[in-house]
């Protein structure tokens, strides 16, 4: 009953900004009560266990430990809270492990009892001290293990704590039974139980509140990570594009291109569950469409129905479609193109259509490679067909068909 009931938690007050590493501050991270011991240990560069042990001994010996602790608590400021958004994900949030605290309390309580309690044989003292210290170390070990898997459900932790309590009580009881006679042993065990129950009663509401705070902190951390990720993405893409748009405000075509390409990226990020690796017909058609949009400053409305894996022929039809899109972008005189691609069984069909000025197919000079070579020729070489439907003033539609291998 020494440290445990000193207080509940410190105020998350404002502290002066961090000045130096070894500055004496009450630690937020890894604290048990108010972070005094941890802070002292960090400041002095010694193991926190030693500092805590010292406080426990001081308390047991004369009660001055509590007073000293209280003085430190009041006089020493706490470390500033970590920056939530920039906080490294691996860092533990400030929290207390009240079970470790329980262990120290148990040690202190046991020592007090042995020191002040009447009728103990001198010989019983040291095994008991050893047992208590052993138990404390065990507690600490269990705690470290626990720390790695601290996402385990609350209930399980309660069970472990209960088990730990029983072990401590039973262990010390066993020592006492072995070293003192039966009548005394019984009263000691009862005293232990009473103390343990008292500690539990005092600690439970506090622990529950700590747990709730902890959960809240953890949720907040998850949220802030999501926000940070979103912010990072928006920064890398959208803000960057907006800057470029401002810089190119006079160049309408460039502004449109930037906006379109950003829109596409954002859409892909928002609505596509995961990028398809390797590439399928549908994804390649969309990629190609995007490239043509960017390169030629047109708007292409693309609709893809069905999908299939890529092979040489599928690749060929997509390339031919690309050429048709480029032609539409360059020569049709309109800024919007429709692309419809469909896979139905083994048949792959792509339509590329514009409502531009159209042209006289017969009048195309023989040296114009675009239509004859890149579209019709390519399709025929791969066993497919290409049909161009156009007339001056009627727009152009290129229909590409191929059967998959």
């Amino acid at each position, binding site marked *: 009953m020494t440290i445990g009931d000193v207080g509940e938690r410190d105020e998350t007050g404002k502290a002066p900004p961090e000045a130096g590493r070894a500055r004496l501050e009450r630690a937020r991270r890894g604290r048990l009560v108010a972070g005094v011991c941890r802070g002292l240990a960090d400041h002095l560069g010694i193991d926190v266990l030693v500092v805590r042990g010292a406080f426990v001994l001081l308390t047991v010996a004369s009660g001055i430990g509590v007073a000293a602790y209280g003085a430190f608590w009041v006089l020493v400021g706490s470390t500033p809270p970590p920056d939530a958004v920039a906080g490294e994900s691996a860092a533990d949030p400030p929290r207390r492990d009240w079970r470790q605290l329980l262990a120290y309390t148990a040690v202190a309580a046991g020592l007090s009892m042995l020191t002040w309690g009447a009728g103990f044989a001198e010989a019983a003292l040291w095994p008991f001290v050893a047992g208590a210290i052993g138990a404390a170390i065990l507690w600490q070990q269990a705690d470290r293990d626990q720390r790695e898997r601290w996402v385990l459900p609350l209930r399980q932790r309660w069970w472990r704590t209960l088990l730990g309590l029983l072990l401590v009580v039973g262990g010390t009881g066993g020592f006492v039974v072995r070293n003192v006679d039966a009548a005394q042993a019984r009263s000691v065990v009862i005293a232990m139980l009473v103390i343990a129950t008292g500690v539990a009663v005092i600690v439970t509401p506090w622990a529950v509140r700590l747990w709730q705070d902890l959960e809240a902190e953890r949720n907040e951390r998850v949220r802030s990570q999501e926000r940070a990720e979103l912010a990072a993405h928006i920064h890398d893409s959208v803000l960057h594009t907006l800057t470029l748009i401002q810089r190119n405000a006079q160049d309408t075509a460039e502004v449109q291109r930037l906006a379109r390409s950003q829109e596409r990226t954002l*859409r892909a990020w928002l609505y596509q*569950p995961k990028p398809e690796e390797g590439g399928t017909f549908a*994804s390649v058609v969309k990629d190609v469409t995007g490239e043509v949009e960017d390169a030629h400053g047109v708007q292409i409305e693309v609709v893809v*129905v069905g999908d299939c894996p890529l092979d040489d022929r599928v690749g060929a039809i997509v390339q031919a479609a690309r050429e048709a899109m480029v032609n539409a972008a360059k020569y049709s005189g309109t800024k919007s193109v429709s692309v419809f691609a469909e896979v139905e069984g083994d048949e792959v069909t792509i339509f590329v259509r514009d409502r531009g000025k159209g042209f006289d197919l017969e009048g195309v000079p023989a040296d114009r490679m675009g239509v004859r070579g890149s579209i019709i020729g390519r399709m025929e070489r791969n066993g497919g067909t290409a049909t161009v439907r156009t007339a001056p003033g009627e727009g152009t539609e290129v229909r590409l068909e191929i059967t998959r291998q």
Partner: protein
Amino acid sequence: MSESPLRRVVLVDDHQMFRTGVKAELGGSVEIVGEAGDVDEAVAVIRATTPDVVLLDVHLPGGGGIEVLRRLTGSVPSRFLALSVSDAAEDVIGVVRGGARGYVTKTISGPELTDAIDRVAEGDAVFSPRLAGFVLDAFAASDVPSVDPELDQITQRERDVLRLIARGYAYKEIAKELFISVKTVETHVSSVLRKLQLSNRHELSRWAAARRLV
């Protein structure tokens, strides 16, 4: 299309900037009788003004366009046209099945939008190329035995019409291409809309996750 009184339209979108843009695009071709920025506002405004057509954003604070449809179903004579930037199939299919008579993307031009409003006001359906693509995908020939063939399959003719819509053809062009009247095209599209709204094809209920979007 109609020379007579202007269509009375309510504009529902949570972006003021976008509403202003649409109003500018539409100019004087329709009468904007109300605007709303979230679900509650939309329900109140539509109840109060009973417009011919509601231009309904798919994504809205308070439950989305689908929530507006759900609350108003059967209680107002207004017709709904969904308007969205979303490419997500479940959003689009969701509002159409919720009762919207069509879906267009926000990139649509002013005259096209006016045309779409007219068509919806007259009880026809409006399919953007993208929606046509969704439907073709959802009703793709499959071996799954259908519970109700009348609703669970689309006819070859309807498929032809949808393909042409997906290819970027206007109704007039489709009519010319298929040697049918514009009215017949509209009938086909409305029939597809009905199937889309009523069919229980499992693709429609849980397809979005399995399919690529767009």
